[in-house]
């Protein structure tokens, strides 16, 4: 079994590494430093860390001001607060002014588990994707997260980075390339394409393995950047494979599935299905049971692929 590590742990470790090489990096948190893991940075660079207390709106706007004084500011809280509660601050202070603020938002999706629906952001990707000037990253695993943090620091403007609480499978290598806006094909295939992001990427790889045993070769695309979306990779997947399934730990409304659908609707008439949360809130439970409950497992991806393949072969 693959090594497991949460993306939030990798996020905190990456911030501490980044702090060592870039003294212009400041980190802000709203009393969640030991959950978002910005505490890793706090321990090493306390004079470059601001705790705003439990006041996310204030933190986001102040982070914009700090950024406009020449700093690269990472502001962290839970995704439901960063993208949700402080949405208008992220919009008007950070995105409208193209402030150099990176939002590292954790505990996204049902994988945050027992805390329940109030804390499981299922709409953050959707909210952040609609904002002009915003880049949206959903790294597949801990290895990719470190690269995402360093890449985000190089972007001149706002970046949303989605992180998770649950230790999940490492499915990329340390030498796997990471370029914002450029999807990674992790497995080649010509029969169907599975486009996934975040912790659904390792699930997509498991699904592809299962499909291979039945003679179906699935291409697995790690779409770590939701915005700007690698449209060429989506079009190539549709042309080469003739069938597409998306998989995300997020609502099927407005997230990766929607972004891919927008590209496909622009002239690519291929059978298509979205694996994700079917327009509902989360709920308390152990993550594996929640994945089963919300249809977020490798088996659900396999079933979706089979339905799409049936449509492809009828056509």
């Amino acid at each position, binding site marked *: 079994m693959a090594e497991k590590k949460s993306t939030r742990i990798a996020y905190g470790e990456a911030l501490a590494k980044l702090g060592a090489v870039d003294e212009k990096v400041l980190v802000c948190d709203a009393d969640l430093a030991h959950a978002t893991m910005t505490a890793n940075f706090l321990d090493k660079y306390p004079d470059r860390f*601001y705790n*705003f*207390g439990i*006041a996310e*709106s*204030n933190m*986001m*706007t*102040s*982070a*914009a*001001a*700090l950024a*406009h*004084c*020449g*700093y690269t500011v990472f502001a962290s809280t839970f995704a439901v607060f960063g993208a949700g509660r402080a949405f*208008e*601050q992220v919009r*008007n*202070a950070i995105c*409208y*002014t*193209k402030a150099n603020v990176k939002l590292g938002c954790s505990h996204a999706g049902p994988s945050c588990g027992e805390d329940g629906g109030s804390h499981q952001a299922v709409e953050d990707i959707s909210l952040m994707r609609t904002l002009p000037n915003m880049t949206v990253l959903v790294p597949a695993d801990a290895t990719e997260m470190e690269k995402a943090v360093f890449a985000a620091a190089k972007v001149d403007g706002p970046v949303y980075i989605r992180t998770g609480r649950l230790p999940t499978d490492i499915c990329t290598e340390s030498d796997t390339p990471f370029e914002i806006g450029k999807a990674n094909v992790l497995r080649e295939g010509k029969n169907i394409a599975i486009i996934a992001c975040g912790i659904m990427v390792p699930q997509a790889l498991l699904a592809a393995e299962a499909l291979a045993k039945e003679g179906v070769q699935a291409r697995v695309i790690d779409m770590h950047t939701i915005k700007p979306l690698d449209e060429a990779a989506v079009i190539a997947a549709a042309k080469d494979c003739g069938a597409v399934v998306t998989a995300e730990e997020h609502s099927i409304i407005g997230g990766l599935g929607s972004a891919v659908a927008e590209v496909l609707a622009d002239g690519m008439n291929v059978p298509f299905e979205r694996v994700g949360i079917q327009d509902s809130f989360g709920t308390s439970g152990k993550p594996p049971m929640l994945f089963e409950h919300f249809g977020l497992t490798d088996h659900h991806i396999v079933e979706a692929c089979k339905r799409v393949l049936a449509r492809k072969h009828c056509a």
Partner: protein
Amino acid sequence: MEQKLEKKARQYRRDILDMLYECQSGHPGGSLSCVEILQALYENVMKYDPKNPHWEARDRMVLSKGHACPTLYAILADKGFFPKEELKTLRQLGSILQGHPDMKKTPGVDASTGSLGQGASWALGYALAGKRAEKPFNVYCVTGDGESQEGMIWESAMAAAHYHLDNLTVLLDHNGLQIDGSNDQVMGLGNICAKYEAFGWEVCSVDGHDVAAITAAIQAPRCGKPRFICCNTVKGKGVSFMENQVGWHGKPMNQEQYEAACRELEV
């Protein structure tokens, strides 16, 4: 409040009326009430360089009540941040002068505000940066009283005291009115000075149309705390039929009203 307005203050008011009449929209009442507050800041207090608006050691001014931006634009033009001819383009497509302050479009505007409450957090962030800068700077924030109903005002007030930001001054343009009526009718502020004091700020009250008094309040010695100055003002100040009238928060003038207002402001 019957003393004759100073010549410069009358000129800024005339500029505001010209701008708002030209675009037939915008907010006269709250623009006219904060003229002397901004005048004190830009004439007596702040360090800035109109030729280098992004000078890193400049003092920052955040107009948190962003709808009063015609006042800021009149002063910035007067100080040479951009040509005065730009003023007549206010609120028009392609203008550098947006309906609410936009730091990306207007030289001299330090924060994009207008979404009420946010300016106070902008000022907080700038004050934190001012404390860690090689060349420290001061930060001034002009808030509105209706705006003080926003939660962010109090989130940032708590944080400013926590971080001992004595480089931060909030000036409240306390004209007592907001869109739906008086503060007391809509959502009473209670004792606003006592509230800031309880949050750990130094507090004082001044006549908000007395430039010298405002200047003195800003420049009084500091004691390690952020400062709150309650500037008692008259909404619509300088135009008799607008003074203390709720209806002039955001109403365009017709020709007759514009001409009458201009006559009142003649030198």
